[in-house]
C-alpha cells in the first residue's frame, strides 16, 4: 500500500488489512497446490500398480510437535494483546524452535522411509512413495517460509514493534502458522487413510 494512502478514506472491504488479504490469497493458492497433488494421488492410486507402504511412527511425534508449536504461537499472540512482551518473545521462540524440531523430524522420517524401502525415484520406486516425498517436501518448503516469517516477527518484538496496538504482523504470522499446521494435519490424515 502506498505510504501516503490511509484506509480511512476507503470503502470498507472485508474488514481485513490489505496485507492480511494478500496473505490469505497466497494461502488459497498454496491450498490449490496441495489439493491438486492429493487429488492426483487418488486418481493415480485408482489406476492400479500402486505399492502400499508403511508410514514411519515418527510422524505422530512430528504432528504433536507442530501442534504444540501452534499453541505456543497462539499464546504469544494472546500475550501481545495484553502487552506482556516477555511472554510474546518466549512464545515466538518456542514456536520457532518447535518448528525446527518438526523439520528435523520430517527429515528423520525420510530416512525411515528409505530404510523401509520406500524411495522417491529410481528403479525400486513406486509412484505411491514418490507422492509421499513430494507432499512432505512441498509442505516443508512452505514451512521454511513460515519460519522466516516467525523470525522476522521475533525480531520486531525485540524492537518493541509488536504490542497490543501493533498486532498485524504477529496476527498474520499466527494465521500462516496455524494454516501450515492444519495443512500438515490434513496431509498426515490423508496419508494415514490412503497409504
Amino acid at each position: 500500500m502506498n505510504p501516503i494512502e490511509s484506509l480511512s478514506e476507503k470503502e470498507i472491504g472485508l474488514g481485513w488489512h490489505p496485507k492480511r488479504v494478500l496473505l490469505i490469497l497466497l494461502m488459497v493458492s498454496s491450498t490449490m497446490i496441495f489439493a491438486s497433488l492429493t487429488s492426483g494421488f487418488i486418481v493415480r492410486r485408482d489406476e492400479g500398480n500402486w505399492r502400499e507402504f508403511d508410514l514411519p511412527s515418527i510422524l505422530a511425534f512430528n504432528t504433536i510437535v507442530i501442534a504444540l508449536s501452534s499453541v505456543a504461537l497462539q499464546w504469544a499472540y494472546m500475550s501481545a494483546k495484553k502487552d506482556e512482551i516477555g511472554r510474546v518473545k518466549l512464545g515466538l521462540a518456542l514456536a520457532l524452535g518447535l518448528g525446527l524440531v518438526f523439520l528435523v523430524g520430517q527429515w528423520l522420517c525420510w530416512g525411515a522411509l528409505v530404510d523401509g524401502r520406500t524411495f522417491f525415484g529410481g528403479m525400486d520406486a513406486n509412484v505411491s512413495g514418490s507422492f509421499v516425498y513430494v507432499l512432505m517436501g512441498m509442505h516443508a518448503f512452505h514451512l521454511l517460509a513460515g519460519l522466516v516469517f516467525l523470525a522476522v516477527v521475533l525480531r520486531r518484538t525485540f524492537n518493541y514493534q509488536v504490542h497490543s496496538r501493533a498486532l498485524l504482523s504477529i496476527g498474520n504470522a499466527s494465521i500462516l502458522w496455524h494454516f501450515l499446521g492444519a495443512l500438515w494435519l490434513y496431509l498426515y490424515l490423508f496419508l494415514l487413510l490412503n497409504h
Partner: protein
Amino acid sequence: MSDMSAKPNLSAGVQTAGGIGTAPASHTEHGEHAHHDEHEHHEQHWLWKYVFSQDHKVIGKQFLITGIFWAIIGGTLSSLFRLQLGWPEGTMEWLTPVLGKWIEGGKLNPEFYLALVTMHGTIMVFFVLTAGLSGTFSNFLIPLQVGARDMASGFMNMLSYWFFFLSSIIMFMSLFLETGPAASGWTIYPPLSALPQAIPGSGMGMTMWLVSMAFFIVSQLLGGVNYVTTVINLRTRGMSMSKLPLTIWAFFLTAILGILSFPVLFSAVLLLVFDRSFGTSFFLSDIYIAGQALPNQGGSPVLFQHLFWFLGHPEVYIVIMPAMGMVSEVLATNARKPIFGYRAMIGSLIGISLLSFVVWAHHMFVTGMNPFLGSVFMFLTLIIAVPSGVKVFNWLATLWRGNIRFTTAMMFSIGFVSLFISGGLTGIILGNATLDIQMHNTYFVVAHFHLVMGSAAFFGLFAGVYHWFPKMFGRMMDEKLGYVHFWLTFAGVYLVFLPMHYVGIAGFPRRYYAWTGFDSFSQFADLNKFISTAAIFAFFAQFIFIFNFFYSIWRGRRATENPWNSNTLEWTTPVVPGHGNWPGEIPAVYRWPYDYSKPGAEADFIPQNVPYSQTQSSNLPYEQELAD
C-alpha cells in the same frame, strides 16, 4: 465539457499536457503538491523510477512493452511454419542466414517445425495474452479506476514483473539451444515431454521451458493476489462493488481464476520435472525407446492432462475476460450509451468464471474416459454458451441506436464482438463429445480457438491500447494509421481462419509438418497457400501498429485529460499521472460508471465523481433522494 470533467475534489491547479509518460515530470509541478506526496519530494534515481519501479503504471507499461516484444517473436514463428505449410515444394534456403542449420536442403527441419508450433503457442498464450494483456491492463487500470494510489503491495507488484522478465529471458534463451526449444506442443503432454532422450526438443529446451514456466507462475500469483487485494481493500469512498467499471470486474475475476488455477499447473510442472530429472514415474509407464524398455512403471500420462487442463481451461478465460471487460468499457463510452445489462454482465462474468473450473475434461474426450463422465463435461461445457450469449447480446444491445463514435478502439471492440461470435459458435460444435472425437486435433480446433481466444483477445488488447494510450503516455495514437491497422487485421484474421475450418472438417491434422504424403489433402494445396499468404500479410500489418505505438509515444498529438469524454476515475487524473495518481485528494465516487446520454443532463456524460446534488436536472427520483 471541460467543466464536467473538472473534478470537485481536485483542488490542484490545471496541469498542462506535460510530456510523455517517461519524461521526467516537471519539478515545479511537484513543488505544489509536495505536502501530499512525500514520495516524490526528491528526484528518484532513474533506475528506481523506470526500471525497478513500484509504480503500477510503470509496471503496466513494462508488461506491455515486453508483451509487444513477445508478440513479434510469436508472430515471426507462425510466419515461418506457415511458409512451410503453404509452399511445401518451395525453397527456404534464403532463411539460412537467420535459421542456420534448421534449414536442411532448402527445407525447414521437421524437429524445428514442432518447436516452432510449440513456442508459438506458449508465447502467445502465456507471454502475450496472459502477461501482456492482463499484466498490462490490470496493473495500469485497477488502481486508477478504483481510486487508489497504487497496488496493495507495490513491492510484490514489482517482483511480479521481474519474475516475468526472468521467465522471459529463460524462454528466449531456449530458442538458441543447439537442440532447439521445447517441441512437445504448448500442452507439453508426457511421455514426449517427460523423456529427455525422446526428441531433441524434449531435452534442454524442455527443461528451460519448465523452469521458465515455474517463474512465470510465481509472477502470475504475485500479480494476481495484488489485483484481488487492491479491488477488495483499496476502493475509494463510494466505490461499492456495484459501481465498479466492468473492466475491474473482469480483471478481478481473472485474477481469482489465476490464483486458483496456476498453482495446479505448478504441481504438474513440478511432477514433470521430477519425472524428467529425478527418476520418478508420475506420468511414465511401459515405455520402449528403440526396442529398450524404460524402468518407469505405473505412471499415468492422463493424470498430467487432468492437471494441465485444470489450469488450461481457466487459462483461456484468463486470456479472454480482461478483453471482455475492456471491450464493454470501450463500447459503452463510444456508443455514448450505458452498457446494456450492467448486472447481467457481472453475473455472466461470474458464471463463466465458475463454469471454467468444471469443464476441463472437454479437452480430453479422446483419452478413453468414461462416456458418462464425458457427457457430464459436455453438458457443463455447453452451458457456457448461456453466459457468453448474455454478453454478446448485451454488447449488441449497447450498440443499438447508440450515438456511435468510430474511434480505433471502438473498431477493435466491435471486431472483438464479431470474432467472439464466429469463434464461439464453433465452440458449441467442439463441446459435443461425439463431434469432438471426429474433429479432435484437426485444423477445425485450431481455427476455433484462434478466432475466439487468440484473435479476439488480441483485438481486446488493441482496443485497450488505443483507448488508454492517452492516459499512459499523454499523447494520442494516430487514428488514420489505426484504421488501416484495424481493417487489414480484421480482414486478415478472417481470411486466415475461416478457410481453416474447411480444411479441418476434411480431417487435416494439426501439428503435421507435411501433408504432401496424403492424397486426400492435395486438393487443399491452394487453400493452404491462401491461408499462409493471408497470415503473413496480417502479421506484417501489425508493424503499422508498432510504428504508430512508438511514434506516438514521442511524436503523437498531445492528449487532454479526458479525450474520450469518459466517466471512469482514471480520466480525472492529470494528463500523465505521477506516482500516487492524484495530486490532491482521491475523488470520491457517487454514481455508476455508465451515465452516458442521460436524459436531462447538460452533457452526454457524467463522471463517477460528480455528486447527484450537481446534476439536479437529470436525477431519477431515487437519485434525487441521495442528493438531498
